[in-house]
């Protein structure tokens, strides 16, 4: 964007102003993208959950009820904004803003398409984690500022959940950091080129006979970082197809459900227990701000999960189109943006599905789930991820002579790594699941019953 603007009006304006304008335009585009998706997500959630519960859902406003979110928005805008008399006015006012702003900041680092990333931050993954932790303060402010016991309870629950599920989420993302060798989100889709399970390891033997539709030249290729190689690339080398990525994805997605307060984990706003949690005393646009924050958080968490484990914008045809050069690069970018959006929507559909299928957890079940199941799995997965990297990429010197894999081709090393990590992950998962089983219901022994 900056470059385009420079070429158009480069001489008329000072450079810092051009950079500022370019980033303003990019910010506007990303915000409209997210809010447009938010509107569709609200509609889709209501329609899909209605379908699952054998209802109709909103179907009056516009075709298939598509304009319902707009009607809702009009209602929200015109509603009276009520502030309780005993509320802390400023904290009450600032809380929705503090919870929305960090969520929106998460959108800045996600690569929305091939070459379509708002900013390239080399600590992007850490940034996302840090920024999403800030929204807890907004919830706390809302709960305390409302001066309402339901709101305070909801806020306490929300923050406790946010803080405890951050640990498995971050540990699951750590596997991505180990696999990628860095914290930048920009590189992740490029690293997930290739074919399922094997990744980008099937080399082209005959440089002339390899079709550019199937083979891509990769410069940064695990194992041989310097010389460009031609590899079989269908855009499907997603990490979720490897044992390490699969376990990491499952752990991260469950933790993301908890962070986004989706249904099995929606105890902060359990409407049958504590009205609406921290949102109890909010109405009108302030309530809508919380609502937007929640959906955009889910949207960006789904985007993050897709980028980290499902290949991001990577998909069949993107690399082939990009190889054709010229205007086709832009077609490749559009196709890649479509792939990412499709992945986000599939993940969001799974979220709705879970909402239709599962009841709400209790608080102790919630904590047990995070500490006894997700965290051990994520810790085991880090060991597997480092084994994966060391088997596929290390030379025998780096192994300090313990293991010598120099003679193997890269696809053989990948296969060895997949088998080793699969054994570790499957046995660890089986073991952790088995020790988490409830103790076997002992037969009710009539003789042993003692009055308490």
């Amino acid at each position, binding site marked *: 964007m900056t470059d385009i603007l420079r070429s158009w009006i480069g001489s008329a304006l000072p450079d810092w102003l051009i950079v500022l304008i370019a980033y303003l335009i990019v910010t506007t585009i990303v915000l409209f993208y997210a809010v447009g998706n938010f509107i569709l997500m609200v509609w889709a959630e209501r329609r899909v959950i209605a379908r699952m519960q054998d209802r109709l859902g909103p179907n009056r406003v516009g075709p298939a009820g598509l304009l319902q979110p707009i009607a809702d928005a009009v209602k929200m805008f015109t509603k009276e904004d009520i502030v309780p008399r005993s509320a802390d006015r400023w904290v009450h006012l600032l809380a929705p803003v503090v919870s929305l702003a960090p969520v929106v900041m998460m959108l800045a680092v996600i690569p929305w398409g091939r070459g379509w990333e708002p900013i390239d931050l080399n*600590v992007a993954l850490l940034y996302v984690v840090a*920024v999403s*932790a800030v929204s*807890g*303060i907004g919830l706390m402010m809302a709960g305390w500022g409302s001066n309402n016991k339901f709101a305070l309870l909801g806020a306490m629950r929300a923050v406790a959940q946010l803080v405890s599920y951050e640990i498995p989420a971050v540990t699951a993302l750590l596997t991505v950091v180990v696999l990628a060798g860095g914290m930048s989100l920009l590189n992740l889709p490029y690293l997930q080129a290739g074919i399922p399970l094997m990744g980008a390891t099937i080399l082209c033997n005959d440089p002339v006979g390899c079709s550019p539709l199937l083979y891509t030249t990769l410069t940064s290729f695990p194992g041989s970082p310097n010389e460009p190689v031609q590899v079989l690339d269908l855009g499907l080398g997603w990490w979720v197809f490897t044992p390490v990525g699969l376990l990491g994805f499952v752990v991260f997605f469950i933790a993301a459900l908890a962070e986004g307060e989706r249904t099995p984990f929606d105890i902060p706003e359990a409407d049958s227990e504590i009205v609406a949690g921290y949102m109890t005393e909010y109405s009108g646009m302030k309530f809508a701000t919380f609502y937007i924050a929640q959906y955009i958080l889910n949207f960006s968490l789904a985007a993050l999960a897709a980028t980290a484990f499902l290949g991001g914008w990577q998909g069949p045809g993107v690399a082939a189109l990009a190889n054709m050069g010229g205007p086709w690069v832009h077609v490749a970018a559009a196709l890649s943006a479509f792939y990412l959006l499709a992945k986000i929507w599939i993940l969001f559909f799974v979220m709705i599905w879970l909402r239709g299928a599962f009841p709400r957890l209790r608080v102790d079940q919630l904590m047990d789930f995070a*500490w006894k199941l997700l965290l051990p799995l994520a*810790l085991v997965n880090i060991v597997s991820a480092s084994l994966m990297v060391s088997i596929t990429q290390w030379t025998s010197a780096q192994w300090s002579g313990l293991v010598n894999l120099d003679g193997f081709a890269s696809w053989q090393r990948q296969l060895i790594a997949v088998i080793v990590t699969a054994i570790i992950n499957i046995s660890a998962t089986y073991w952790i699941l088995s020790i988490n089983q409830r103790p076997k219901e002992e037969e009710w022994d009539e003789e042993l019953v003692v009055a308490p």
Partner: protein
Amino acid sequence: MNTLITILFLVFAVFILVAAIMTVTVKNIVHAALWLISSFFGVGALYLLMEAEFLGVVQVLIYVGAVSILILFAIMLTRDLEGSQNRQLTPRWWIALIVPAALFGILIVPTVMTHAWQLPPLPAGQPPTISGAQQIGTAFIREYLLPFEVAAILLLVAMIGAIVVAFEEREQRRRVLTLAEQVRLRRQQQQQVATLPEPAVSTVQPSEATGSET
């Protein structure tokens, strides 16, 4: 560009100072915590201004995301949040004044006096060394390996310890009876009561049993 950075620095510095002063002067403890958080944010922004992205992000993650939430949790468990009769100063306020002043004198003044502020300009073409994630990582693995490993093992042990504690707790917990089991238990107790004092069985017994069962 330099003047822009200076202006931004001044804005952030004033913001941090105002927030810090508000933290210690505001009567309401929750407001004080919120001002403290905004002062943490200001420090993070200063790090970003110095192009230390990693430090800035970690500042937000640790101080804003973790420490301040802990503080807020602790505050909300205390009584008397905004009592107007809360004293701002303890009787021994002068000790509290002397200790930070002495620490400030010992730590900051020598640093300010001896630090080489005017760095020589870098030779052309050589990129400036920025303390990014890579440099910090290299320093951790090379120079400060032992402290880094000790801290890492400590944290990992804490994490695994938390998991182990979570597992142990369940075995000690009393099993919650289901409704059917409770009913059966009560019925059994009544049978025991009915059978124990065999000679003293009276006509009251059956009606009492049905009464308590419903």
